[in-house]
């Protein structure tokens, strides 16, 4: 007989030359469907799927898919439930005939139809969901005809429409715009075989807000338009966000090139679109002065401004400048200056500033008191404006030194989280928090890599807890002292209410079949499985003292991974607090470990966990060594509301990057369930 190893080696050639069962394009199409499903959220955000035909060249449906899968809604990047006061959106906020231009000198746009709602066709071939599905409360759409001058003939292969939408909050509007940006970055229009996403460029607008334009291409172009295959569709999109409103201009032109020396048509129309959109819209962040309030006017020298910072370990590297009004303030020190702008102090009445240098890390904190809450809010906005104005795209071909992102925070009465990340070494996290007439600014920077800046933001936000509590005390709303609630008193609710929706789904609920097993919700279901970090059992519900009487579990197992959830009610609020503190301590002391099973080290990270409640999101993936590492990990979100703690686990085969991208989805899911946990908080939520 021949050598079995030789036989074995030849087996690898067994299929050599065999036909491919499916073309790569079909496999990619399947991958696109998987991806959309993974990103689908919130069942019930229905989108009216409308028959194609209203647009002759690019027939597309509102969900942008061909398989009837659920439409996609955006992931809010910030949590903000404060409604924004505004006048009602109307047709008056749309671009007019005169403002809609095609600046080639020989053509123009004319209004064809205007109607309330999302209309009879999707506003873009990349649309994955209607504006209503994104959460808009009011929507108007206007379609334009392309008129060739001077004959006034209508050219049916060129399209322009504008859709405008009003959302409950400015945050919702930003989230919707973010979703639309995402669609445009990763799109395959129906019938297209290729799509090239262009870069978004910032377009200056005359009102508060942002505007971005993008030119993308896709094809092939219909043979009736381009019999020789030389054309592409040029899809130009402009997205304006102003307060709680969004406008999207979508223009589709088939052709061989798309060169505009004076700016593209959409770039030239966006300022007018923004101006129109802002008509009748009040400032979304204006805080009305609270009458009859005795605002604090002085800060105690004992104010715990350095709380949460590293403690003095006796090393020469530890250089602390204790809090004092005599220390240089952050604005004149240039510590709130970026991108040629500086924050402005509208007139603080007291201030404390402190700085700490520790090796390559630098920390600055400042607390300011203003005449009232309106002044404090103005200062907060001023800081936010500085960083919101930083470019996110190339400027004259030069990319920005830092990637700056500004998002609303979830602590204090109002807060912003600002991150600045270099493309290499260097990261900065800035938290700005207002409570009443007081604002604290916290800046931390170090030589961590830019891609981990959210870790820094998470840690610094958590380290601010005592400072924010002190601000609450200062305003007379604190819970410390003898008048506060007794956290060690027996909690009012210590069992899980019947029908608790532990199985809430972000997308359509999973269905049990041969590949998917669903257990619970039931007291006997394990839900989140025990886990260790650095050889210590993590403090999570069910992990230490299983207690069916006060617990509920739920799990979904499938080939794509494992989702587990456990909620447990503790005897007292203090018990739940202790659990969270222990968990945080465990995580802070563990950034890598090994299970001793031959796999590479597990790398532990924490993620932004803006659930609006006391929560932490963390997980691990395997280290990649010599380009090899197990593509697997586990992601957890643990949230406390009153005396109850909910843990959510997602285990699967994924990379570190994918885990980071998926974390906001899990945080959002946890937030939804946590909203149902208010029964465990004595004063509600």
């Amino acid at each position, binding site marked *: *007989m021949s050598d*079995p*190893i030789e*036989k*074995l*080696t*030849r*087996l*690898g*050639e*067994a*299929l*050599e*030359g*065999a*036909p*491919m*069962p*499916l073309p*790569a*394009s*079909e*496999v*990619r199409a*399947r*991958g*696109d469907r*998987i*991806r959309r499903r*993974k990103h689908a959220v919130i069942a019930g955000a229905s989108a009216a799927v409308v028959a194609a035909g209203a647009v002759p060249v690019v027939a597309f449906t509102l969900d942008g898919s061909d398989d009837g899968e659920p439409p996609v809604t955006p992931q809010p990047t910030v949590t903000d439930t404060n409604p924004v006061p505004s006048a009602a959106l109307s047709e008056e906020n749309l671009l007019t005939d005169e403002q809609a231009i095609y600046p080639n000198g020989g053509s123009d746009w004319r209004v064809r139809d205007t109607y309330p709602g999302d209309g009879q066709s999707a506003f873009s071939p990349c649309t994955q969901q209607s504006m209503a599905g994104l959460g808009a409360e009011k929507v108007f759409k206007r379609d334009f005809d392309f008129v060739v001058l001077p004959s006034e003939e209508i050219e049916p292969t060129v399209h322009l429409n504008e859709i405008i939408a009003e959302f409950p909050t400015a945050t919702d509007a930003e989230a919707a715009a973010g979703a639309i940006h995402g669609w445009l970055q990763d799109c395959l229009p129906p019938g297209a075989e*290729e799509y090239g996403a262009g870069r978004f460029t910032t377009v200056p607008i005359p009102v508060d807000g942002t505007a971005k334009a993008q030119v993308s291409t896709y094809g092939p172009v219909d043979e009736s338009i381009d019999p020789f295959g030389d054309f592409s569709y040029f899809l130009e999109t402009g997205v304006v966000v102003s307060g709680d409103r969004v406008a999207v201009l979508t223009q589709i032109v088939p052709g061989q090139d798309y060169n505009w020396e004076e700016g593209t048509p959409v770039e030239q129309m966006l300022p007018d679109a923004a101006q129109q959109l802002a008509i009748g819209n009040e400032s979304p962040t204006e805080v009305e002065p609270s009458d009859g309030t005795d605002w604090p006017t002085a800060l105690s020298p004992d104010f715990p401004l350095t709380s949460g910072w590293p403690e003095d370990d006796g090393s020469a590297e530890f250089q602390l400048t204790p809090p004092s009004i005599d220390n240089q303030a952050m604005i004149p020190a240039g510590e709130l200056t970026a991108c040629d702008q500086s924050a402005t102090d509208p007139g603080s009445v007291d201030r404390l500033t402190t700085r700490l240098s520790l090796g390559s890390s630098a920390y600055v904190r400042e607390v300011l008191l203003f005449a009232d809450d309106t002044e404090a809010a103005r200062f907060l906005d001023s800081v936010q404006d500085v960083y919101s104005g930083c470019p996110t795209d190339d400027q004259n071909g030069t990319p920005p030194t830092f990637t700056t992102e500004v998002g609303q925070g979830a602590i204090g009465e109002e807060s912003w989280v600002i991150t600045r990340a270099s493309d290499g070494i260097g990261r900065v996290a800035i938290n700005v928090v207002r409570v009443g007439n007081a604002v604290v600014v916290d800046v931390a920077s170090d030589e961590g890599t830019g891609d981990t800046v959210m870790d820094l933001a998470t840690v610094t936000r958590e380290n601010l807890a005592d400072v924010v509590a002190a601000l609450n005390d200062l305003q007379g709303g604190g819970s410390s002292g003898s008048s506060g609630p007794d956290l060690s008193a027996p909690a009012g609710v210590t069992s899980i209410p019947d029908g608790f929706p532990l199985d809430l789904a972000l997308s359509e609920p999973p269905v049990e*079949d*041969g*590949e998917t097993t669903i257990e619970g919700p039931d007291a006997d279901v394990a839900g989140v499985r025990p886990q260790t970090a650095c050889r210590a059992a993590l403090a999570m519900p069910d992990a230490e003292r299983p207690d069916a009487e006060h617990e509920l579990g739920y799990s979904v197992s499938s*080939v794509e991974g494992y989702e587990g959830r456990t909620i447990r009610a503790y005897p007292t609020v203090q018990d739940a607090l202790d659990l969270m503190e222990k968990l945080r301590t465990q995580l802070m002391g563990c950034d890598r470990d090994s299970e001793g*099973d*031959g*796999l*590479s080290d597990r790398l532990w990270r924490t993620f932004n966990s803006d659930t609006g409640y006391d929560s932490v999101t963390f997980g691990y993936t395997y280290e*990649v*060594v*010599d*380009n*090899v*590492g*197990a*593509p697997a990990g586990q992601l957890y979100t643990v949230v406390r509301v009153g005396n109850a703690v909910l843990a959510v686990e997602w285990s699967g*085969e*994924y*990379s570190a*990057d*994918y885990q980071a*991208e998926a974390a906001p989805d899990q945080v959002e899911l946890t937030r939804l369930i946590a909203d149902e946990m208010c029964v465990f908080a004595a004063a509600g939520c």
Partner: protein
Amino acid sequence: MEAHEFDELYAASFRRITSQVYAMIGNLDEATECVQEAFARAWANRRKLDRAEYPEAWVRTTAYRLAVSRWRRTRLAKRPVDRAVGAATETPGIDESHVALVAALRQLPQAQRQALVLHHIADLPIHQIAAEIGVPEGTIKARLSRGRTALAALLTDETNGGLAGGMSHV
């Protein structure tokens, strides 16, 4: 990963991975479907897959896990519709000697079979197999040694009239 890069990876490695997974699980149709599904997932995860992380190894591992998962659920004949990328696959005929070899492989313990396939068909060095499977290198060496011996014995039995043998079955 851009579409053309994916298409190149698919064209270059689909058959190779399929034959490897086929050798590991012994069912060509199932191997073909699992590799297709794994490629679809690779495309779905294209932005997260660092190209330096051996995309081919990722696809192979995913396909193999899918196959094992299906086998565990004894659902080989009732594949859910949404798992299928397209129409039922039509796999080419396999040489008889290959069938015999795969039959012999199937009689090996799963761990030995996997090590043999990854080393001798996928041509991976031992340290990379150890990383891919997640066990120490010494364990891989031992599995390879035992697997070669067992395979030789099985093929000798085959020559002598059959595939009878007392190897444990997975």
